[in-house]
Structures are given as structure tokens and as C-alpha cells.
């Protein structure tokens, strides 16, 4: 029953060939198709830990996730959701996260995630969450020492990932950066140093069963002449989640649209449904976010 309420009416592209006029033989066929769909969804819910469109669109094997947003459609909520899922993953053991926070202090994330049902303070105490408060990064060093500060930051992150892996939990670890644009500012605009740091984080994903999620503000780079951080990030990403405002303007029910592009090349990075590009609307709530196809909101 819960699944049925979530998905009516069915998205058009999934049931394109089914007659929408409910003649009785077709209605039973439609019912059967619904039932199989929901059984599949239920199976996926167990697999991904959540039953919404975002988890469907994100394939499990994606290692480098880049979240793009802009002023009109901020995507910090995506980070919060992914953080909650990273900490909840694996049930008893397994799963852990490192959050490199340049945008907000710990209290902010604690407050937000508490409303979503996730206790960050508890996770921090039990060392499942490693919080790096980088609001003052790099803290006084200047010039060529930026590269050194970033190298030290990387060394701290690597140590955290290694300790987590060495422990009894061997689940998927998530390194989250909020956000890369601020990191570039902290590095005095040196995109090369930031890219080097990100490259090393990417090597962690292939060597240590870890995923990397970064947030970047796309509208900062739109008017740039040269090639900025954004283009490079789009190349290294396996998965790009882009939040954009609706072309029709502001609305109370719909806060924006989300595009999810699966770029991954390897077989385990294929999304479950085979479709690589997903596009749907979202609404941010106090305790999470709703994802739905355009026009299916009532």
C-alpha cells in the first residue's frame, strides 16, 4: 500500500505502451504491471536503503559523485541525504563517512540531519562520522604552502579511511566535500592545487572501496573565460547530479529539477534500469526531500 501511494500516477515513460483508458482486460494487465513494478521497487529499496527516484537513478557502483547547484536551486539537501544514507548503510557494521565542511559548522549539519532522523553527534562520538571543520582552512599559510596544506589535509583523510577499513566494518566509506568552490577560494584561486587534492581523493576511491561526493556551485563558473574547475570535475565524475531551477520560475510545490547523469564506464557503474540520464523534480522538506516526475504531483 505504501508503495502504491508513492508512485501513482505512473511515470509516462515507463508505461508508454499501456492503454490509459481503463478497459477491464487492460486494467488487470495494468494492475499486474504495477504489481511487478512495485515488487521490483521493493527489492531495490532493500538494496539501496531508500525507495525514491534519486536512489534509483544513482547506480550503486558510482565512485565519484559531483553535485552541481546554483543560487536559485541549492543542492545542499542532496549532500544531507547522501550523508544520511552513508551513515545508515550496512545496518550493524560497515559504512562510515568523512565530511570536509567549509560551508557550515558542525552544529548546522547536526541540526539539519537530526530533523531527518540521523543523529550526527552520536555517529561522531562512535567514530563513524569524521568531521573536518575547515571553515578556517588553510589557517594562516600562504603562497606555495597551499599545496602543502592540501597534502596534509589529504594525509588526514587517508588516515581516517585506512583506520575505518582496518576496523571491523569493511563497508563503503564516503568522503564528502562541502564545497569545492570554497576550497578553491581557500586555496587562493589555485584550481590546479585543488584538482591535485581531488585527484588523490579519487585514487582513494579505487584503492579503498570508498566513494567521493563533492558539491560545486555551477553558476560561479558560467561566466569564466578559461577552463575552470567545473569542466575538470565533470570529466572525473562517474555520476553528475545537477540541480536547476524550473524554467517557469518559483513554485511552492516544486523547488526545482534534478538531472542525474550516469557517466560511469565500467559495468558495475551501470544503473539498474539501464537508463543513464534521469530528470525529475524535487521539493525540499524539513525531514528530507521528495522526488517525483514532472506533472505527477497532486
Amino acid at each position, binding site marked *: 500500500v505504501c508503495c502504491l501511494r508513492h508512485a501513482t500516477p505512473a511515470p509516462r515513460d515507463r508505461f508508454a505502451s499501456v492503454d490509459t483508458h481503463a478497459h477491464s482486460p487492460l486494467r488487470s494487465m495494468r494492475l499486474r504491471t504495477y504489481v511487478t513494478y512495485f515488487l521490483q521497487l521493493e527489492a531495490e529499496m532493500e538494496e539501496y536503503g531508500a525507495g525514491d527516484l534519486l536512489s534509483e537513478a544513482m547506480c550503486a557502483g558510482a565512485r565519484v559523485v559531483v553535485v552541481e547547484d546554483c543560487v536559485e536551486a541549492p543542492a545542499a539537501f542532496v549532500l544531507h541525504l547522501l550523508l544520511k544514507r552513508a551513515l545508515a548503510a550496512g545496518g550493524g557494521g560497515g559504512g562510515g563517512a568523512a565530511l570536509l565542511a567549509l560551508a557550515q559548522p558542525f552544529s548546522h549539519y547536526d541540526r539539519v540531519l537530526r530533523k531527518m532522523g540521523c543523529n550526527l553527534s552520536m555517529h561522531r562520538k562512535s567514530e563513524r562520522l569524521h568531521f573536518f571543520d575547515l571553515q578556517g582552512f588553510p589557517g594562516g599559510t600562504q603562497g606555495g604552502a597551499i599545496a602543502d596544506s592540501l*597534502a596534509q589535509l*589529504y*594525509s588526514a583523510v*587517508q588516515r581516517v579511511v585506512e583506520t575505518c577499513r582496518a576496523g571491523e566494518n569493511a563497508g563503503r566509506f564516503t568522503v564528502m566535500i562541502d564545497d569545492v568552490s570554497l576550497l578553491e577560494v581557500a586555496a587562493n584561486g589555485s584550481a*590546479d592545487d585543488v*584538482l*591535485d587534492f581531488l*585527484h*588523490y581523493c579519487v*585514487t582513494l576511491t*579505487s*584503492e579503498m572501496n570508498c566513494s567521493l561526493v563533492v558539491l560545486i556551485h555551477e553558476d560561479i563558473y*558560467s561566466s569564466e573565460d*578559461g*577552463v575552470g574547475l567545473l*569542466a*575538470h570535475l*565533470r*570529466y572525473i565524475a562517474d555520476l553528475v547530479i*545537477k540541480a*536547476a*531551477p*524550473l*524554467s517557469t520560475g518559483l513554485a511552492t510545490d516544486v523547488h526545482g*529539477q534534478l*538531472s542525474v*547523469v550516469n*557517466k*560511469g*564506464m*565500467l*559495468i558495475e557503474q*551501470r544503473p539498474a534500469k539501464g*537508463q*543513464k*540520464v534521469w*530528470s525529475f523534480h524535487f521539493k525540499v522538506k524539513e525531514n528530507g526531500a521528495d522526488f517525483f516526475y514532472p506533472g505527477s504531483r497532486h
Partner: protein
Amino acid sequence: MAVEGSLQCCPLAARAMLHVAAAVASNAAAGKAQARGLVVVAFDRSPEVYLDIMLRHGLDSNALSRCVRILDCYSDPLGWKQNIRSEQHQEDSGTPCSTNKDTITIFRSVKDVDKLSCSIIDLGRGFEGEGKTYFSVAVDSISSMLRHASVQSISGLLSNLRSHDQISSIFWLMHSDLHETKFSRAFECLSTMVACVEPEVVDSVYGEERRGDMSFLEHNYSKAKFHVRLKRRNGRVKHLYEELCVEGYDVKFISATSVSIEVNQSLLPKVQFNLELSEKERSDRANVVLPFEHQGKGEPIRIYDGRRSLPEAHQDPNLTTAALLDETEALKSANPKGEIHYLRDSDDERPDSDEDPDDDLDI
């Protein structure tokens, strides 16, 4: 060879590059190529990815260890990890996978282009073989190299590798979106062959205000156009068009039948008068009987030497052909003092063939 891709189809350009690398490696392993082995300079991907792709391409692990060497500039390009280990006084654990110790060599100073060049050549010299052993080099990718060193030093590196007498071929991947056009062109000039992976559906406003509609990417991430420009030694440029299809681990190249661009036409100079032939003119040209050509109709060949009398011309039914009446009939009955037998090499050889016989000359 330069393999170029752009953001709209970047996974396919990378797959094409991996496919070429695997193909070169398997040719080297099978002894079909001049090169005995392949050196992969890996910046963008973990060495395991290359080994995996090559194993899927049909190389066994024995052939891999014999014919493939990977210079790993991905795991620790700036030496940060080594610094961490030395600070923690840990043993150098080397490569993660111990069975691949010979195949993978970690390189830690990507900003030093000379050292990189020496490492590539050293790895290449390590291939076994009698006499002079050649090897190929694959660079994945030049765009990442350009983040650490200047354009001049990288093009210097490529030129040095090109002129090295043991290197039979070099190919590299370049992302045209990440550089200014002049740098991409500079690297294209260095290469004899440029393979562009172009998106099937071109969205000119991608990345700008066209927010939300990315459905074209679905198509662009599975199919792309593969356009190869080959520069021959005599300066002529040959174009090849194919379609690139990626399904899972398979990369397929399908020759594009719908592309009917006449390459010869593009070689004609653009002037204000028409230099091309119409269909009628083409068929007339095909009907022209060339002098000295044996027609085999049973009639004696008559060579026109410019002197013919009017009445004979009126009676002659083959007025349009080059085999006109001989002036002196007496010569017909006499034994011909000399004959010319012309045998064409092949009947379907087009006069403006692309194959230049001078291409075999190695001056």
C-alpha cells in the same frame, strides 16, 4: 595518433582510447605488429582498469606481462603518499597488487617532464626480443599531463618520443574542452592521424542556460561519430568516417554507410566555375575509347594520325571514337611493321585513385 573527445561524449572517447590500447597490445602479443610491446602512461585511470580491459580483449596474463608495461602516474603523481609513508616510518608497500609488480611502475614526479621521458624509454627498452625491439606508447591523457607541465615541455616530450628510433607508434587521448583551441591544434599538428570522437546529437547550448534537458546525453553516451583524419606523407589528407557503439565492455566500430561525403570533391579547389562532371559527362567519359586500347571487337585497330580525307570521314560510323580511319588503305593489307598492344592493369581502376604509387617510396 591523437584521439580527441569532448564533454558531450567523453566516456566514449575514453573507451575508444582503451580499445585502441588493448588492440595494439594484442597485436604486439600476437607478433602482428612491428612493436613488441606497449607502454601505457596512465594518468586518468588506475592501472588495474587497463589490465582488466586488456584481459577482456583476449590477452592472457602471460602475454600481458610480456608485452605491456604501465607507467602509473595515477596513484601517486606528486609523491604525497610516499611522503605520508616516510613520515609514518612505514615500509614502502609498493603496488597494491603484488602479482603485477613487473607490469606496473609507479611514477611520482609528473612535473618533471624529462624524468618522465626517461622512464617511458626505460620501460620500453625492457621488452624482450632479438635485435632491435620496437615498442608503442599510449598516453592517457595529455589533458592531465598539461595540468602539471607546460604545453611546450609536453610537445617537446612527444617530439622526442616520435623521433626515438625504437618507438614505432605513439597515441594519446586529449579532451578538447579542457584546453584552448590553439593547444589542441598544436597537438594535432604533431600527430599524423587524428581521431575525433564527436557526439551524435550536438547540443550547442549544453552547459549554459538549457537547464534540465539532458535527454540528448542518453544517446550521446552510447553512440558517437568516429572521424579519422589521416595525413599522408605526400601531404594528402584522407578521411574515414565510422560510428562508435559502446555496449557494456564491447566497443564496436561500424563504417558509416549514411555518410556519403565524397572526399575527392573536398580536394577540388573552391573557385567560381564548375570543375565537376555531370552524370552525362561522366558516362560519356566512360565511353571514350582510349588510343592504343585493345577493344576486342574483332575489327582492326585504326590509329588516327591526324590526316584523314573527307569522304572517308563521312562513311565512318565510328566518328566519335578515337579509332578513326587510317589514311592509306595500303597499309592495312601490308604486314604491320610495328604494333602497340595496350593492356590495361585493371578495368575498374579509377583514374583519380586515392592510392598514390609514390607512397611506397621511402626517401
